[in-house]
């Protein structure tokens, strides 16, 4: 037989649900807002039923339609009139809604049986009322458990406390709105509530109010020159300070939390443009709450006296409820009762934990299979949902249609936890505007319930993309890319906008300067925007925007590493606007490039052609000189065309009238495309090979000599490997290989012996290469001695000395190379 496993804390102020599984308890988070608990509040607003945080919010607006603390009326004949729906409800009805909401926290494996906790004070009628609420919520089997017992179980189980002798525990439950204290007798693994005491109107909220009244209001009165502020706040229902009161309550609660971990907290207020800051010390806070804590101590003492229990008979006090986070509560209890005050588990979820532990030991009596079959038969199959998949609006309309005169409820939630319609009644058809998070894929879940609130339809992962596509504009025919420097001295294309993105488009990129550009040095920063394919070489694409920032335009030197902001905008008519901002030198340039005018720079074309010629020559060298193959023929053809283009470029120097430069640019792109097609794939495969070899080398070294730090670096480099290896971006793969080589180098220098080779690298140089030959000679002698004595610490010092003496320092292969464009 299966165990019940699910435990529910149906609290006066907050509720929660957990499950016992494989010896542990998992507390289910509220899918709306992802909190462990749900405020036990129900609200009716228009046609909606709201449960939890949103219901609580409406207390001040429509108090007549918001219901909280109804647990106190469980089992009574109290009738609640709900004006919004013109119906009467009972505490059982509201508890049922809270329980249904809690059951919703659980994913697919919904509970059909549960342990529900009740206060120690509940009589048989109140207990039965709780059971009725559970059955109404769809549970078929319910076991009740007293809250203090649940708390004791949570502590005993989590700490594995042996309960084999007679003990008395005190459960001190100081929550958000209520205080309860119970004496529990423990004997031979049996737990029994001996007696209890409490105050239904004493909790954390009273402490927040005290802080506002006695700490915040006096300061505000002084600073703002208002008299009797607290009285004005609470004195009338339509107080002009109502908004201020909410802010003060929020600040007080934040400060209260901070004072639980720190000795002082600062409260900052900005009221009518007046900035007020005040410090609250823990000492002052403790003095303030003293009377409230004493009130709980008095109730506790009364309970002990009633039951003739002395302080030293209490083996431990266990803490439950959020207010027990306050250190003063714990220390006062310790001082007063001189016993163990146990706060080892989260006091806000202790009851749920205990209920779930208990549920994990209780065997189910009913058959689950029959229930599931019955449920499966009633599911709706022909529900139609209509909506736009892509949207640029803040909200998108969803229409739902259910045939056959269906009446019931629907509820739509967003899976990120930020949107929830609550339960809404409908007949056959419903419409809802769904709120979207900008620039994101929004996943929704649509649920339909029959009039008894049984789930009859569920559609998960209904997706609406915001801002990703516009349904009216025209798509981009090619990628739009920015040419940037890599760390290897070459350039590559970074996508700004993707092919098929819909116009108009805008994007901001943050880059850095990749080479020093000194004022009036003749250097320049090049911003080149091309249209084409991001994975190809920059020069084979069509230039649509070209901007040079010359050194003469600079007000100061532009240093390598300086930040640069570039805004790109493409209008529906494909005009490109570039705005460049360099904060360090306060330079801002805006340029508009018209789609009909091609952007060409003879100097850049020349540079590209010259670089390519070297590459083609290098490529030809990789073939045998006598080899005749179509590839070699094509490469020779490319070579000749590049030379011809370079010649033509010289010829047109100074020609500002004819279109020849455009012709050259067109031919250049064609010839580069041919070259790209010829070699790119081959180079890519070769680079992937290099990468894999470098990766294996590091892996093997780490296997032989594990090092967590280097392993961390290694994993960082190979993260998203599939993505960059399939990117077709040669530069990207090359830079990854370089990073792996750098790691290999670091592994190599972990061995002391590696420094011997490095030493001889310096020792075998000409002495004339050193600034001070005599000192260098001394270093070399010292190094040789250190090697014979295996004194590697000394050897490292010698190497540092020799390096600093070198007139020209050797270049570090792993250092990033300066860029050619100046943009990285």
């Amino acid at each position, binding site marked *: 037989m299966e165990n019940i496993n699910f435990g529910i804390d149906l609290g006066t102020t907050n509720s929660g649900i957990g499950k016992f599984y494989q010896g542990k308890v998992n507390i289910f988070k509220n899918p709306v807002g992802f909190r462990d608990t749900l405020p036990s509040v129900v609200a009716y607003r228009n046609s909606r039923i709201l449960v939890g945080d949103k219901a609580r*919010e409406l207390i001040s607006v429509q108090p007549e339609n918001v219901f909280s603390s109804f647990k106190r009326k469980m089992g009574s004949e109290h009738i609640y009139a709900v004006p919004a729906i013109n119906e009467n409800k009972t505490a059982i009805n509201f508890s049922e809604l809270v329980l249904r909401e809690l059951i919703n926290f659980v994913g697919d494996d919904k509970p059909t049986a549960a342990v529900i906790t009740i206060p120690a004070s509940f009589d048989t009628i109140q207990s039965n009322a709780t059971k009725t609420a559970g059955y109404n919520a769809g549970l078929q089997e319910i076991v009740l458990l007293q809250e203090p017992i649940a708390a004791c179980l949570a502590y005993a189980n989590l700490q594995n406390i042996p309960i084999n002798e007679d003990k008395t525990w005190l459960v001190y439950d100081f929550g958000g709105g209520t205080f309860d204290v119970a004496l529990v007798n423990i004997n031979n693994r049996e737990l029994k509530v001996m007696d209890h005491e409490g105050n239904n109107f004493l909790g954390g909220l009273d402490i927040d109010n005290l802080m506002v009244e006695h700490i915040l209001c006096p300061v505000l009165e002084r600073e703002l020159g208002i008299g009797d502020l607290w009285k004005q706040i609470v004195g009338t229902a339509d107080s002009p300070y109502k908004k201020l009161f909410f802010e003060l309550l929020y600040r007080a609660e934040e400060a209260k939390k901070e004072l639980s971990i720190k000795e002082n907290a600062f409260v900052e207020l900005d009221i009518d443009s007046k900035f007020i800051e005040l410090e609250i010390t823990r000492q002052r806070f403790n003095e303030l709450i003293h009377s409230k804590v004493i009130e709980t101590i008095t109730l506790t003492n009364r309970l002990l006296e009633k039951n003739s229990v002395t302080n030293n008979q209490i083996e431990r006090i266990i803490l439950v409820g959020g207010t027990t986070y306050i250190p003063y509560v714990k220390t006062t209890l310790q001082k007063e009762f001189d016993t163990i005050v146990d706060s080892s588990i989260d006091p806000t979820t202790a009851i749920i934990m205990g209920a779930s532990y208990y549920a994990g030991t209780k065997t189910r009596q009913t058959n689950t299979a029959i229930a599931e079959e019955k449920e499966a038969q009633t599911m709706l199959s022909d529900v139609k949902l209509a909506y736009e998949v892509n949207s640029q609006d803040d909200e998108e309309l969803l229409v739902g249609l259910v045939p056959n005169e269906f009446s019931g409820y629907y509820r739509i939630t967003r899976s990120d936890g930020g949107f*929830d319609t609550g339960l809404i009644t409908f007949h056959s058809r419903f419409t809802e505007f769904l709120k979207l998070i900008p620039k994101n*894929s929004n996943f929704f879940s649509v649920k339909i319930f029959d009039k008894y609130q049984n789930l009859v339809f569920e559609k998960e992962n209904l997706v609406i993309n915001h801002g990703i596509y516009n349904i009216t504009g025209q798509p981009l025919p090619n990628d739009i890319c920015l040419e940037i420097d890599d760390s290897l001295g070459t350039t590559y294309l970074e996508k700004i906008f993707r092919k098929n993105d819909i116009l108009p488009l805008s994007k901001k990129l*943050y880059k850095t300067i990749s080479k020093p550009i000194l004022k009036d040095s003749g250097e320049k920063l090049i911003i080149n925007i091309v249209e084409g394919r991001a994975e190809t070489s920059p020069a084979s694409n069509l230039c649509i925007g070209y901007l040079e920032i010359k050194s003469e335009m600079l007000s100061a030197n532009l240093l390598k590493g300086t930040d640069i902001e570039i805004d790109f905008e493409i209008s529906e008519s494909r005009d490109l606007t570039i705005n460049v901002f360099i904060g360090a030198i306060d330079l801002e340039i805006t340029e508009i490039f018209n789609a009909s005018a091609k952007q060409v720079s003879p100097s850049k074309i020349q540079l590209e052609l010259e670089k390519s010629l070297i590459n083609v020559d290098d490529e030809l060298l990789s073939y045998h000189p006598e080899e005749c193959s179509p590839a070699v023929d094509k490469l020779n053809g490319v070579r000749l065309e590049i030379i011809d283009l370079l010649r033509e470029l010289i010829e047109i120097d100074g020609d500002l009238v004819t279109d020849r430069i455009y012709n050259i640019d067109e031919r250049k792109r064609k010839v580069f495309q041919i070259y790209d097609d010829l070699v790119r794939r081959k180079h890519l495969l070769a680079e992937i090979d290099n990468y894999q070899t470098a990766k294996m080398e590091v892996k093997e070294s780490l296997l032989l000599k594990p090092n967590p730090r280097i392993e961390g670096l290694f994993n960082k480099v190979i993260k998203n490997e599939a993505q960059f290896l399939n990117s077709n971006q040669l530069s990207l793969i090359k830079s990854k290989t370089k990073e792996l080589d750098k790691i290999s180098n670091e592994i190599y220098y972990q061995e002391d012996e590696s420094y011997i080779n490095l030493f001889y690298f310096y020792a075998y140089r000409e002495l004339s290469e050193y600034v001070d030959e005599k000192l260098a000679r001394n270093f070399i002698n010292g190094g040789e001695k250190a090697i014979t004595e295996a004194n590697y610490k000394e050897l490292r010092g010698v190497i540092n000395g020799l390096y600093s003496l070198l007139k020209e320092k050797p270049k570090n292969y792993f250092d990033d190379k300066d860029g050619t464009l100046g943009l990285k």
Partner: protein
Amino acid sequence: MKDIITQIFEIENKIKPEDIAQFKRNFQRIYHELEQEGYTIINPLGQIYDERDVSIEANIADNGVKITKVLKPAVYKMESDGSNTLIQKAVVIVG
């Protein structure tokens, strides 16, 4: 991270309206970097109160309908599987 985001938000709000222009780019950059790290930050100031928007913890005064003050922004975090999770509710005053 959500506490750092709230602090940045508070600093931004402490700056007087006449001085904000000079910090605009800095805040844009900070929010851009946070976005790159998977955080979406939403300041609901000026929005109409919507009881379905559970990313907001509202204190409603004077039967108000508009969000007039934001004490904390809403923060979503993009998980590695591409799904979003609300990690901080906005705390607002409606009035």
